[in-house]
C-alpha cells in the first residue's frame, strides 16, 4: 500500500519533469525492484537493488525494500553498471573546427602539468548527450606534444571539478612514433626515422632531467639549506618516477609499442598503462609478458595497414585479451563518446565475447585506474553509477529508462532529445 503511494508520488514527480520544468539531478533512497542485475563481478542475479546515500546499499534476491524508499519497478528491465570510457576528449571540445572552443592541446612539447579537469566544461552540450546513453564516467585526456598533460577520470554529473572528479589521474606521454600523422603526411621514410630518433632523444633528455629533479628534491627534503627552483613540469614527472602518478603511454604502431615497453622497463616506471595500441594484436604476447594493462580504441576503425584484414581494428581488443593482456576499451572521441557501447559491441562480435567486452567498459577500466572499490560493477558498498535498460546496452535497439551517476538520479535529457521533442511534430507545422 505504502509503496504504491510512493510509486504514485514518483510518477507525479516524473510528470512534473515532463511538464517542461527544469530537469535536475537529485539524490535519495531508491529501491529498484524485480530487476535483472548484471553485476559483472558476481554474475547475473534477479531481485532488488537499494540505493542510499549515493551508494548501493544492498542487492540481490530477497533484499527488503526500506521504508521511505522511492520505488522504481524494474520488472522486465535489466540493471547494468554505468559504462566507463577509458579515453576521451569529452568536455574539452565544443565545436572542433573552432579552435577557441577546443582545449585539448596546450602549446609546447613538455606540458605534463596541464590539467584536463581544469578545462572540462561540465556544461558542454556533449556531456548530457553522452550520459543519456549510459556512459557514467570518462577519462578526459589532453592531446598534442610529447607530454600533453594530466588526464582525469570524471563522473558525468556535477558542476565543479571537485564534484566530477572520480579518483584517478595520470600523466600522458605520446610515445615517439615512426608513423605518419594523416593522409596528407608525405614525409619520406628517412625523414620519419630521423624525426623518431630525435623525438626519442628528446624524451630521454627530459627523463634524465626529471630523474635529477627527483634526486635534488629528495636531497632538499633532508636539507633545509637546499632550495629547488619552481619547476612544475619536472614536479609532475617526478610523481610518475616516484610512482604516485601513473604514466599513460599512447602508442599505436607495433614497433613503437615494443619500443615503448622497452623504454618503460628500462626507466623502471612504477605504474604504466598503454593506450591506443591499435596494432597491439601484432605484439600481444610481448604486451602480456610486460604485464602492462591496455586501454584501446576506437574499435570501430579502419585497419592500420592496407595489407591487413578489413576487421583487424574490430578484432584487436579481443586478440590482445586472448593473449592475456588486461584490456579496457575507449572511444577516443569527443562529441560521440556515446558510441562507447557500440565499440564494445563490435569488439565482442569480432572475438572478444560479450562478457569480456562488457568488463572492458566497466570493471576492467575501473581496475586499471584503481577505482574498482567504487565503480565498475554492481556490488554493495559501491557508488550508485548504473543504468536501468530494456536489455543489452550494446544493442542499438535497447532503451535506457533510468540513469544513476555517482549516486544521483540523472534526468534522461539532452539538447538532442529536446530537439526531437520540439520537432517530431513541429508547431506551427507546414501552415502557420
Amino acid at each position, binding site marked *: 500500500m505504502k509503496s504504491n503511494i510512493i510509486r504514485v508520488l514518483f510518477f507525479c514527480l516524473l510528470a512534473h519533469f515532463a511538464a517542461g520544468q527544469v530537469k535536475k539531478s537529485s539524490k535519495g533512497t531508491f529501491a529498484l525492484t524485480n530487476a535483472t542485475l548484471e553485476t559483472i563481478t558476481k554474475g547475473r542475479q534477479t531481485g532488488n537493488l537499494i540505493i542510499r546515500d549515493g551508494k548501493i546499499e544492498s542487492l540481490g534476491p530477497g533484499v527488503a525494500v526500506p521504508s521511505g524508499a522511492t520505488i522504481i519497478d524494474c520488472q522486465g528491465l535489466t540493471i547494468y553498471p554505468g559504462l566507463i570510457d577509458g579515453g576521451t576528449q569529452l568536455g574539452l571540445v565544443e565545436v572542433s573546427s573552432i579552435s577557441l572552443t577546443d582545449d585539448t592541446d596546450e602549446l609546447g612539447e613538455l606540458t605534463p602539468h596541464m590539467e584536463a579537469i581544469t578545462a572540462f566544461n561540465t556544461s558542454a552540450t556533449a556531456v548530457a548527450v553522452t550520459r543519456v546513453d549510459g556512459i557514467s564516467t570518462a577519462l578526459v585526456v589532453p592531446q598534442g606534444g610529447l607530454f600533453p598533460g594530466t588526464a582525469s577520470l570524471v563522473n558525468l554529473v556535477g558542476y565543479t571539478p571537485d564534484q566530477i572528479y572520480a579518483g584517478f589521474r595520470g600523466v600522458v606521454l605520446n610515445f615517439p612514433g615512426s608513423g605518419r600523422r594523416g593522409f596528407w603526411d608525405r614525409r619520406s621514410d628517412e625523414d620519419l626515422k630521423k624525426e623518431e630518433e630525435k623525438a626519442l632523444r628528446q624524451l630521454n633528455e627530459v627523463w634524465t632531467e626529471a630523474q635529477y629533479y627527483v634526486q635534488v628534491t629528495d636531497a632538499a627534503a633532508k636539507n633545509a639549506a637546499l632550495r629547488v627552483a619552481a619547476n612544475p613540469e619536472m614536479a609532475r614527472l617526478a610523481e610518475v618516477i616516484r610512482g604516485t602518478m601513473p604514466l599513460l603511454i599512447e602508442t599505436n604502431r607495433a614497433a613503437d609499442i615494443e619500443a615503448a615497453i622497452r623504454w618503460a622497463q628500462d626507466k623502471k616506471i612504477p605504474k604504466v598503462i598503454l593506450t591506443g595500441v591499435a596494432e597491439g594484436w601484432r605484439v600481444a604476447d610481448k604486451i602480456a609478458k610486460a604485464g602492462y594493462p591496455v586501454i584501446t580504441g576506437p574499435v570501430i576503425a579502419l585497419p592500420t595497414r*592496407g595489407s591487413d*584484414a578489413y576487421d583487424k581494428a574490430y578484432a584487436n581488443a579481443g586478440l590482445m585479451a586472448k593473449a592475456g593482456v588486461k584490456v579496457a576499451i575507449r572511444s577516443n572521441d569527443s562529441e560521440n563518446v556515446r558510441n562507447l557501447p557500440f565499440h564494445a559491441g563490435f569488439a565482442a562480435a569480432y572475438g572478444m565475447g560479450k562478457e569480456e567486452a562488457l568488463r572492458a567498459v566497466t570493471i576492467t577500466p575501473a581496475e586499471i585506474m584503481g577505482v574498482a572499490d567504487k565503480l565498475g560493477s554492481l556490488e554493495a558498498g559501491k557508488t550508485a553509477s548504473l543504468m536501468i535498460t530494456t536489455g543489452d546496452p550494446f544493442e542499438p535497439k535497447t532503451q535506457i529508462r533510468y540513469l544513476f551517476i555517482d549516486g544521483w538520479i540523472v534526468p534522461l535529457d539532452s539538447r538532442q532529445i529536446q530537439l526531437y521533442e520540439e520537432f517530431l511534430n513541429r508547431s506551427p507545422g507546414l501552415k502557420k
Partner: protein
Amino acid sequence: MFKIFWASSLGVLLLPGLLSAQVTRGSLLIRNGTVLTVTRGNLENADILVENGKITAIGKGLTAPSGVKTLDASGKYVMPGIIDAHSHIGIDVVNEASRPSTADVWVGDALDPLDLSVYRALAGGVTASHAMHGSANAVGGECETIKHRYGTLNPEDMRMEGAPRTIKFALGENPMRVHGEGNRIVPATRMGVEQIFRKGFDEAKAYMAEWEAFEKEKGKNPAAIRPVYNRRHEVMGEVLRGNIIIHCHSYRSDEILMLLAVCKDYGVKRLVFQHTNEGFKVAPELAAAGAMASVFADWWAYKFEVYYSTAYNAAILAKNGVVTSINSDSEEYIRHLYHEAAKTQRYGNLSDEEALAMITINPARQLGIEQRVGSLEVGKDADIAIFDGHPLSVYAIPQYTLVDGVIRFNRATDAADQRLQASATRAETSFTLLKEQHHFDRCLEGAFDQTLAFFGISRE
C-alpha cells in the same frame, strides 16, 4: 556532312568504353535463409534463385537449375545489398576546388578500380555507392553511381550502367570557406551561395534558348551561326530539364529552404539533400516539396553548422514523410551502415523495416535506381548481403556479399590482403593515426591541397 562528322566522332568516343565494360554476372541458389526483402516483408526459411545476375525467384523449396551452385544460408539473414547515397570511394579525386561552379567536371572521369575501400565496403555488405564530388564548390560537378565489382581493373566496369545522372551541389561553410575566405570571391556568405545557383540556372536558360533559336534558324538559313559549346551550361540545362538529380550538401535549415525556393523558381523537382543535419527542422517543407534527405546517423559538433544537430534527425524526417537514407561520407563508416541504420532504433524507435529501408530502398530512390536494386524482388539485380545475425544487431557480421549474382566478399575464405595493386610507398610504411578520421568533412578532401602545399606538405 556535319551530321556524319558528329556521328562518327561520337562513335569513336563511345565505342571503346562500351566494348571494354565486361560486367560479370553470376547464378546461384541461396537456400533456407531468413529473407528480409525490405519492401515485401520477411520470409523465414526461404530461397532466392539468382540467374545471370538477376533475381528470378524467391520462395520455399526452390531447386537449382543444372550447373547453378547452392549457398546454404541456414540460420543466416539475407538482405538487399546496402547502398550508400554519399561516398567518395572508388575515385581518384574529390574536389575541383578552383571555381564556385564546376558543373562541367565529372567524377566518372576519375574512377579508381584499385581503391581498397571498395573491398572494405563489400565486407560491410555494401554493393553500390554514390561516388560524389566534394563540397568545396557550390556546384561541384557530376557524380557517378558505382557498383562494387571489386576485382576488375577496368574503371568502366564500376559504373552502374543505366543509373541516372546526378550532380553535387553544396551549401554553407565549405564553399564559403574555400572561395570566400580562401580566394576572396563570392560566395563568402549563404546569400552568395544562393546567387551561384540562380546565376548558373539563368545562364543555362539563356544558353538553351540560344541553341533552340539556332536549331530553328538553321533549317531556313544554312549560314546560321552555331552557338559556342559550353559544358557547364549544358549540364545545368540538363538539371533544368529534369535529367540530372541534384544531391546537395547541406546542414542548416535556412539554406535547405533557400535551395527548395531556388528549385521551385526554376521548376527543378529532383532534389536530394545530403547530410541535412537540420533537415529535422524543416521536415514538413521537405516532405511537401517531395525532396529527399540523406543523413548521418549521429555526426555532429565537428563544425558550427552541425552544432544544433540531433541523432533523432533520421527518425523525425521519416515520421514526417521524407524519404530518408543513412549515408557514410567515409571509407570507414561505409563498412557498417547496417549499424548506423540501427541507431535510428535507439534514437527514434524506428521499426526494423524502416531502419533497413534507410540503407536499401530509400538510397536507391534517391539515386533513381529503385527499379534495379534496393530490395529483394524478382527481376531486380542480385545485389545481396548475407549476415550471420539480424543486420541491425551490433553482433551481426556480414558473411557474403553478392554483386550481380557474383560473390565478391566471402568472410570464410577471403585472404586478408585484398589489395589489387600493392603500393610500396603507402600501404606498409604509412601508419595513420585514425582518431581524426571522422572529425573532418570528407567532402572537403583535396580542397586544401594548395594550402597544405604552402606549408611544404604535398599529396603526391
